[in-house]
């Protein structure tokens, strides 16, 4: 991580030398504008913090938007208890450094029932611990706006979502009844109990996110960088043995392989890739030359066609 942090010392997106802004400068300015608009018009915003690279960029932009003040809202992590250990350590460090309050919510019913990805499968685990957990947390604290790091280039149903995405009091998304969004004018008004999911980096691509992390020296979880790690191969995916909760099947033996993660979720659901990319430029290089899309490492999208759209209608971010 030190190497990442020291990769750039001065921020080149800050200084506009010419009047034509680069695409990253335009994206950054738009994102900051979105953050400020929400804080100016909503009663109780929160930032959903998932610890991944998109969350890292989101947090960085939020800090820029309100500098020299800290962002005037807390971070919320809806925890499934199955994240990588390195993610928890990183989360706590970032909360400390940003001076923001960190709220952690675990679905107490899911916890009591012992819901987990290994025993209950990805679908049940994601629904109970993430989707239901998120709704519980939003209701519990009464947040009326929640920032998320979703991007339109991630997945087909996301390409049509607004920057300001309205949810009914039951947290449902109605893709056929979205408000038109013109210019950078956002209608933030909502009825009692309704809330908004706000996506400040909607227009960023995966490459933009990586490039911005590189240029701005934004800290990320070390799991994104290649290192020798113990893995087993399952259903064509490399699963890291992060703790003793991963039961090994007959004949399975963890092997040390040099791997990294393109996307970070719950460790038994997130496949690693074999890679030698141990610096940010190498990660970007690998990403550009690769031939499979980002979310392929996640089991969640494989369930059925249109599965993400269904999950979103039910309240998944």
């Amino acid at each position, binding site marked *: 991580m030190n190497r990442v942090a020291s990769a750039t010392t001065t921020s080149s997106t800050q200084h506009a030398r010419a009047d034509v802004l680069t695409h990253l400068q335009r994206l950054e300015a738009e994102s900051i504008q979105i953050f400020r608009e929400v804080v100016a018009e909503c009663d109780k915003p929160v930032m959903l913090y998932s610890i991944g690279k998109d969350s890292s960029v989101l947090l960085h932009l939020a800090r820029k938007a309100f500098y020299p003040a800290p962002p005037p809202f807390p971070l919320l992590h809806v925890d499934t208890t199955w994240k990588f250990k390195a993610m928890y350590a990183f989360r706590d460090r970032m909360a400390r450094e940003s001076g923001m309050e960190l709220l952690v919510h675990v679905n107490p019913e899911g916890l009591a029932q012992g819901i987990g990805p290994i025993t209950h499968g990805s679908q049940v685990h994601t629904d109970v611990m993430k989707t239901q957990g998120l709704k519980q947390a939003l209701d519990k604290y009464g947040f009326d706006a929640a920032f998320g790091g979703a991007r339109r280039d991630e997945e087909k149903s996301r390409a049509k979502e607004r920057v300001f995405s309205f949810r009914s009091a039951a947290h449902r998304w109605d893709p*056929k009844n979205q408000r038109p969004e013109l210019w950078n004018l956002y209608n933030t008004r909502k009825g009692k109990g309704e809330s908004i999911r706000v996506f400040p980096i909607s227009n960023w691509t995966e490459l933009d996110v990586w490039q911005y992390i590189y240029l701005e020296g934004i800290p990320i979880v070390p799991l994104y960088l290649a290192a020798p790690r113990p893995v087993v191969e399952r259903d064509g995916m490399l699963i890291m043995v992060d703790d003793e909760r991963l039961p090994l099947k007959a004949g399975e033996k963890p092997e040390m392989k040099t791997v990294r993660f393109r996307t970070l979720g719950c460790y038994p659901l997130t496949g690693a890739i074999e890679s030698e990319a141990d610096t940010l430029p190498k990660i970007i290089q690998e990403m550009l030359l690769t031939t499979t899309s980002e979310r392929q490492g996640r089991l969640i999208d494989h369930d059925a066609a249109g599965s993400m759209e269904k999950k979103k209608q039910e309240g998944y971010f």
Partner: protein
Amino acid sequence: MSHKSELIARDIEGYLTAHEHKSLLRFITCGSVDDGKSTLIGRLLYESKMVFEDQFAALEADSKKVGTRGGEIDFALLVDGLAAEREQGITIDVAYRFFSTERRKFIVADTPGHEQYTRNMVTGASTADLAVILIDARKGVLTQTRRHSFLVSLLGIRRIVLAINKMDLVGYAEDVFRTILQEYHDFAAQVGLTDITAIPLSAVYGDNILEPGPNMPWYHGPTLMQHLETVEVGEEDSGKPFRLPVQWVNRPNHEFRGFAGLIASGTVRPGDRIRVAPSGRESRVARIVTAGGDLERAVAGQSVTLTLDSEIDVSRGDVIGAADAPPQVADQFEATIVWMHDAPLLQGRDYLVKIGTRTASATIAPLKYKINVNTLEHLAAETLELNDIGVCELKLDRPIPFAPYGEDHTLGGFILIDRLTNATLGAGLLHFALWRSQNVHWQALDVNQATRARQKGQRACVLWLTGLSGAGKSTIANLVEKRLLSMGRHTYLLDGDNVRHGLNKDLGFTAQDRVENIRRVAEVSKLMVDAGLIVLVSFISPFRAERRMARELLAPGEFLEVFVDTPLAEAERRDVKGLYQKARRGELKHFTGVDSPYEAPEHPEIHLETTSTSPEQAADRIVAFLTEAGMLSPT
């Protein structure tokens, strides 16, 4: 791809430096249903290698299952995102796509051609630098082509690519291309579009997408991608005055007070003299603060935080502008409105308007005309329906900083919001301020409401009785007025039926006329309150929005809403005037409670349930309320 891959593999840092400095082109694609928009965008993504192997495998499978190309690769499936679209085989919402080439990064708004979804096209056009308008070579210029061209022009897009697609289905014939181009030019000139690049294409086979291909040797212009990569981008910002709509006042402690926002136009440096609109106060820029250090200069498009060298009052919604060229301020405008909602526009209704970082109350009246987008004819109109475009006068409740949309999209573009449903109803573009708004000033008179009311030994207010026909409003209002009169108070009763015989005899009972009916009564009550009277208004006034409008015309505490609550069945049983019977027989249209809704008050000052309260008791309660509220003694 191969060239790009080589650079990435050989010199990733060099590639990143190049990518960092790429410019951004935002464009929209629009056209009629089945012009092949989705296929074209799918093809652009595929050709610029934005489609990964796993997506391609899924595409192959989908093409066999639901494709429309007999099992061949159907590129449209790459971009038809929502499940509902797959079933119907049409694009139903605006979607954003991203791709980049060696020269540029692109954001594409994929906008539908379906007539009822025109609002989405306007949405996509609002942020675009260029428009690609698709035409099916077999069909030529259609109604939708005209509509989209007009909208694109209206929203300030000047650069047009006319993509004449499906050339493969007309034998790649040059004369077909020429005929369509001529027809389009004739129309485009009428809407002010002159910068047109026409390209003959086959999105399905890839002709003139990246490479010219062998089929149209008669065409010597650029391919679509060549054009998109090289066309000039960016607004001409040089020379425009500095404008910063204040989004957020940043006050982390007593020492720091920063004004944050996205610069709408111009340039700013520390030391620049600024003027704040609408207050007119002046100061100088002290610092341009960002997390990466103070800036020496900031330009349009940057999000910054300014501090000033003197403490002056600046709030969200204000605009900080150059002192020698400050923004204009006005409260009445001529504007174009694009209506985007199922519920039609009601003239005179109180809407919210959001412009820049400011939200204000607005009414639209009169609606001057609507525009037939096929012929550009101006048609008389009472209302605007979904996808209608009209020109109107817009009146705000307070003066705001603004600019004509043609000069500044941020200070000239606005959205209209419904106060009750919070829906975005439409978008608008300011043309200019009306002469009178800058020249007619309110006369401050020496004798005012307070002196007039004091003379009468009371405080002026409006008792607004609302409820169904036959609820007992007029009976109760009469009793209240008699009691107040006997107490020596000065009153006036405005009754729905009576007012309709005179002041409002030109109005019927459509939703539009009901709004106007209430608006006039509210304005008359306001004048009477100014005269120091206690005004009783007895009107069905079925819509919350209009009652709210009346409330907002008056000072806080002057509007007292009295809900005369009689269940529909009871009112219909009484049917004093025989109107319910007529309405049920269909002889009376738009009758509240029968075929027109009644929106009950949510928080009335006085709630009278007539099934358990006699008219006399009701009148007592109202008088008691006035006494307790101090309305019957002078201030």
